[in-house]
């Protein structure tokens, strides 16, 4: 009786109770960075793919272990011997990674939607397999790639699943490459890093994959307006310059090549980290004799702007009925011991988001707040709650999302989430369970 009345609650409760029993036995391998540096996933992640402070520093250091490039010079013969001893001569001379830096992530999802349009309340037909590659050529360059090997079904709440759609590429260009870029680190011995390829433009504090619950992404960074497929967290083809100044200030800016027209988009980002581990992975000075709130507190502030133009492609791949895009946003990340709070908001203006012959502009805004508590060892569990609001052409949508994420192994993640959406077209309730593992 209760099952019939409250199937979502039953599924959620059952999933939570049984999740520790669903420990996959075969997933013992670990992904590329872990293999390369012979360290565990928790060096860089809380529950993957969310990054901890060191993981964020590793990302910002273009996949080179922070401070590793200057070991020999700084530490003398002992360190030099240790470093050389850990890398084969051919790899050191050629600059190649010793192992092929490839890993895979697989996901399988179960969704329950009591108002599914086709009556299929339980949907177990969504799964995906993605290939990742990443690493560094000595300390000169970093590289990263993600390739969508296979995807079946549409993950619930994912508003822009196909990279070709989200990047507004012509219809005859449907790449499975989600990201593929090279970073020239400290170009010409300056603090500037030069990134070229297909990547998420550095706008938000958090990469789209840098969260415990990845689907849906934050409304503040993934929202769409009208028929325009543009969102600020979509991978784009571009060039980006970034620089760390004083270890705690990050500046980034770049341009995006948009197909079907002669104009390029531009963007900029600034973020500043107050206290905590700095962007280069250096720990803060802590007095081990006395307590202070700053021992555990980290605050990161960020702001960004984006301006560009897209349009609807005709049969020749030429953009028509052009839409000028403007976005500006601000974000904050607060970490205190096991508590992690994230929040951000974005304002935007689209001159013709419906790609109509007669342009009608629309001002938009969206914001998202998320709080998570990392229970950690001995139970790698994170309960979290997200609230977000998104203003669309037809009205506003509010979304409430409690979730539980459990990692039985460092490379395996089980998540259970409930999404209550209050949209102009009605209320929807979706329960969503996901199993993912990387190897």
């Amino acid at each position, binding site marked *: 009786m209760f099952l019939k009345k409250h199937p979502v609650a039953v599924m959620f409760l059952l999933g939570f109770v049984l999740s520790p029993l669903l420990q996959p036995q075969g997933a013992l391998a670990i992904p590329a960075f872990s293999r390369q*540096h*012979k*360290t*565990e996933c*928790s*060096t860089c992640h*809380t529950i993957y793919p969310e990054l*901890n*402070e*060191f993981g964020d520093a590793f990302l910002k250091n273009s996949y080179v*272990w922070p*401070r*590793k490039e200057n*070991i020999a010079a*700084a*530490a*003398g013969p*002992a*360190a030099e*011997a*240790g*470093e050389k001893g*850990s890398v084969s001569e051919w790899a050191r001379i050629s600059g190649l990674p010793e192992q092929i830096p490839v890993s895979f992530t697989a996901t399988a999802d179960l969704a329950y939607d009591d108002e599914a349009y086709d009556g299929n309340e339980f949907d177990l037909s969504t799964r995906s397999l993605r290939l990742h590659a990443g690493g560094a050529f000595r300390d000169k360059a970093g590289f990263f790639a993600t390739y969508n090997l296979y995807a079946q079904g549409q993950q619930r709440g994912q508003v822009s699943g196909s990279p070709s759609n989200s990047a507004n590429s012509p219809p005859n260009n449907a790449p499975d490459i989600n990201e593929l870029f090279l970073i020239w680190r400290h170009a010409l011995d300056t603090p500037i890093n030069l990134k070229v390829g297909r990547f998420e433009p550095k706008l938000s504090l958090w990469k789209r994959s840098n969260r415990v619950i990845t689907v849906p992404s934050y409304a503040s960074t993934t929202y769409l307006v009208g028929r325009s497929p543009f969102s600020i967290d979509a991978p784009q083809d571009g060039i980006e310059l970034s620089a760390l100044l004083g270890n705690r200030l990050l500046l980034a800016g770049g341009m995006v090549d948009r197909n079907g027209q002669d104009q390029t988009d531009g963007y900029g980002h600034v973020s500043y980290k107050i206290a*905590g*581990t700095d962007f280069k992975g*250096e*720990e*803060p*000075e*802590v007095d*081990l*004799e006395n*307590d202070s709130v700053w*021992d*555990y507190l980290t605050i990161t502030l960020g702001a960004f702007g984006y301006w560009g133009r897209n349009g609807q492609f005709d049969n020749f791949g030429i953009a028509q009925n052009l839409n000028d895009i403007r976005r500006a946003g601000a974000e904050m990340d607060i970490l205190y*011991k*096991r508590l992690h709070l994230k929040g951000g908001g974005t304002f935007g203006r689209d001159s013709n988001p419906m790609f109509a012959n007669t342009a009608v502009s629309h001002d938009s805004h969206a914001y998202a707040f998320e709080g998570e508590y*990392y*229970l*950690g*060892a001995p139970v*790698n569990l994170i309960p979290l709650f997200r609230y977000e609001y998104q203003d669309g052409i037809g009205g506003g949508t509010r979304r409430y999302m409690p979730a539980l994420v459990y990692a039985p192994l460092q490379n395996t993640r089980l998540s259970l989430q409930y999404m209550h959406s209050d949209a102009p077209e009605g209320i929807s309730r979706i329960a969503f369970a996901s199993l993912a593992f990387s190897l």
Partner: protein
Amino acid sequence: MKKFLVTMLVVAATATSAHAGLKIIGKGDAMHLDASAFPAAMKANYEIVRVKCVKCHTLERTIVAIKTGVAPISGQPFDRSATKAYGVKMLRKPDSNMSKPEVKASVDLMNYLLAESEQ
């Protein structure tokens, strides 16, 4: 004679190279220190390290760093300033379950071991 040679070969193959000032027992994941000669305060500190640190990594990682002066994963120098930085890192790591006094005890022990290994 043959038995003696075989025995010696087995002993040679399984022996662990011990640093001058440190008595190291076992190898690999089972590697640990003989704390019998430690001062009382350091014996207590070693108990903290032995219980707390191995929740996330082996003692081998720490011992290799002390023996070689190089942290095995990062390749960075492992000296007195590094022990403090690692202590702070573990203090701030959300699931390390280490209090400030425990971190201080661990840092004190690593500094003591560094000094011992230099002798």
